[in-house]
């Protein structure tokens, strides 16, 4: 190794300037909760504050929850009062089947603008902003490249509401990054996520006994494991990596390969022409087949993940392993159903555990007996 490498080594191995006081938006989403749990295990992070308009869905020990909607004046007050140095924006809705289009727009575009406004005021303590985005940014078209890199613009204007929202939200983040030179802005574009705890449209589709395919098409699919998503957000929170990064596991599979790995059978019944037109009646029948998935089932999408790997991020799973893990979950699910306890947020209990002088807040004790059971 040359001295040049050694110099580079110290440069990025160095932890981020000051990730000490973190604000997580969308705490009650799956990602916000998982991320807060992950950040709690880092003792150098003094404060974790989570905001959302719903109660948290995951058990947290030292994260403080503030119930607030995406109003920028309120969030700005929290940011200033708590001297937040890092904001992690994990609210983005990427599946049009989970949220009504109006609400999704409200959350994805207006919400992002509000959070950015809260971070951008003069004298703001925020030094880092991490935005969870989606590979839907690139869309999915016939003349796409086989591997999108971060510097590529999408060749066509967005076709679905969710894609439009994501492009708009990213534009707002870009503008914010340009204006605030003292803030490290990181955008992570996640590809389709698969994992046992997440009910995405892909997961639903793969859960069917016969997996529908578009007749005459075998698209390329790439996935990322839910744990890797959390690790990537954590990585961006703890290190200084300005810019935009694709997050997608190694390996792009053919859909037929995925179906084979899951031990399912393909059902090529969707018509090759007018697939979008048939999606609407299918949705009415209860199939979870969102607009942004229609083209993915025809053309597929691949992302180049090297830029993030170059920042020393290591994926835990390849696309293939992600699918295999998911297959295991599908087979185990009927056996384990109902045995996993669910979590309900009890405001008074959580507040007592955090603020009462009678609770012994000893780190050792905390690890033995987690709060908030």
């Amino acid at each position: 190794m040359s001295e040049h490498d050694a110099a580079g080594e110290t440069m990025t191995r160095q932890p981020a300037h000051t990730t000490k006081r973190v604000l997580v938006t969308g705490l009650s989403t799956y990602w916000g909760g998982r991320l807060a749990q992950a950040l709690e295990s880092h003792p150098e992070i003094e404060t974790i504050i989570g905001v959302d308009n719903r109660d948290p869905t995951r058990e947290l020990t030292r994260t403080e929850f503030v119930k607030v909607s995406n109003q920028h004046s309120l969030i700005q007050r929290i940011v200033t009062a708590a001297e937040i140095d890092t904001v992690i924006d994990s609210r983005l809705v990427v599946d049009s089947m989970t949220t009504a289009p109006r609400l999704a727009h409200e959350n994805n575009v207006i919400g992002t603008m509000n959070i950015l406004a809260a971070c951008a005021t003069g004298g703001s303590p925020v030094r880092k902003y991490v935005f969870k985005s989606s590979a839907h940014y690139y869309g999915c078209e016939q003349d796409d490249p086989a591997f999108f890199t971060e510097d590529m613009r999408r060749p066509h204007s967005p076709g679905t509401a969710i894609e439009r929202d994501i492009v708009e939200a990213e534009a707002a983040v870009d503008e914010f990054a340009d204006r605030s030179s003292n803030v490290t802005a990181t955008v992570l574009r996640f590809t389709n996520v698969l994992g046992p705890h997440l009910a995405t449209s892909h997961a639903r589709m793969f859960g069917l006994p016969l997996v529908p395919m578009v007749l005459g098409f075998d698209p390329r699919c790439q996935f990322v494991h839910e744990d890797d998503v959390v690790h990537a957000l954590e990585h961006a929170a703890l290190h200084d990596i300005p810019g935009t990064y694709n997050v997608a596991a190694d390996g792009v599979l053919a859909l037929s390969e995925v179906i084979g790995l899951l031990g399912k059978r393909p059902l090529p019944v969707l018509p090759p022409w007018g697939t979008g037109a048939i999606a609407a009646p299918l949705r009415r029948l209860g199939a979870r087949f969102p607009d942004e998935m229609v083209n993915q089932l025809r053309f597929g999408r691949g992302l180049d993940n090297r830029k993030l790997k170059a920042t020393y991020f290591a994926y835990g799973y390849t696309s293939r392993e992600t699918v295999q893990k998911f297959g295991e979950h599908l087979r185990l699910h009927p056996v384990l159903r109902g045995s996993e306890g669910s979590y309900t947020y009890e405001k008074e209990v959580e507040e007592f555990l955090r603020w009462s002088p009678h609770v012994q807040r000893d780190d050792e004790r905390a690890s033995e007996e987690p709060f908030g059971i």
Partner: protein
Amino acid sequence: MTPDRTSLSGRDDAPATDADERPLPARREVERMRDLLPAIEPERRVDDWGRSERVEGVFDATLIEFFYRYWFRCEVEGIEHVPSDGGALLVSNHSGALPPDAAMIAKAIRDEHPQPRPLNITVEHFFKGYPGFSMLIPKIGCVAAHPANVHRLLFDERQLVLVFPEGRKGTEKLYKERYRLRRFGRGGFVEAAMRAEAKLVPVCVVGAEEAAPVFAQAKLLQRMTGLLYFPITPTFPLLGPLGMLGYLPAKFKLRFLEPIDTVGMGSDPASDKGLVQTVAQEIRARIQENLHEMVGERKSVWFG
């Protein structure tokens, strides 16, 4: 894969800005990005581009073997001009309704080259959107002719790529215009090779024009079927879609010409439009010249 992460240089000097403005990455960063390419898991039989070992093998052992050995009786010259390592862009003339030339070039490299490597054949984006084709085409080693795809294959993965700069203009042309090279686009293929620091290997194919003569193009039927074009050949549309494979048994001759190295052409040759055009013209002229020579030497269309 545990990539060998060696260098961090260039992380700060190459931030995510516009691709057009970014200078060529430094040598070491290039090596590092190559190391970070995902490896193909050994259990997989399909690669990240969608190429399937199994499907390709079946085609290679049956249909392509038959055409290569017995039907077209391919004769290959200058196979040593195909480099054994590093990225190389093969440039060939193009013809035939459902062109047999690409498959024969790939087969020639697989069978005759001392160190055979898979050949990636660039095809129109059209095929990705047409049912059936969309499924089959990537499995047998075709990729969409997107500049980013060509660059990744040539530069990052250092593979062989085949382009037909004539594109559709080549396959659309009629029998009476045979062996007359069409315009070579805007020289995009030369630019791609320069940017990827890859060698350019001109290839001449004689025989394909007679194997699949196109007598006419039916515009109306083309519009009705949504195909790229609708050729009238001796067997198509007479025998249905399979009539596309109804090739006449012309004798094939493949000639690989001496490679052109793009590395010594200056610091950033791809941005020199004049140079790009000059190189494209030169390649076109060399292929045309050799085609004339090969057709001139040929005593019989069917026996060579």
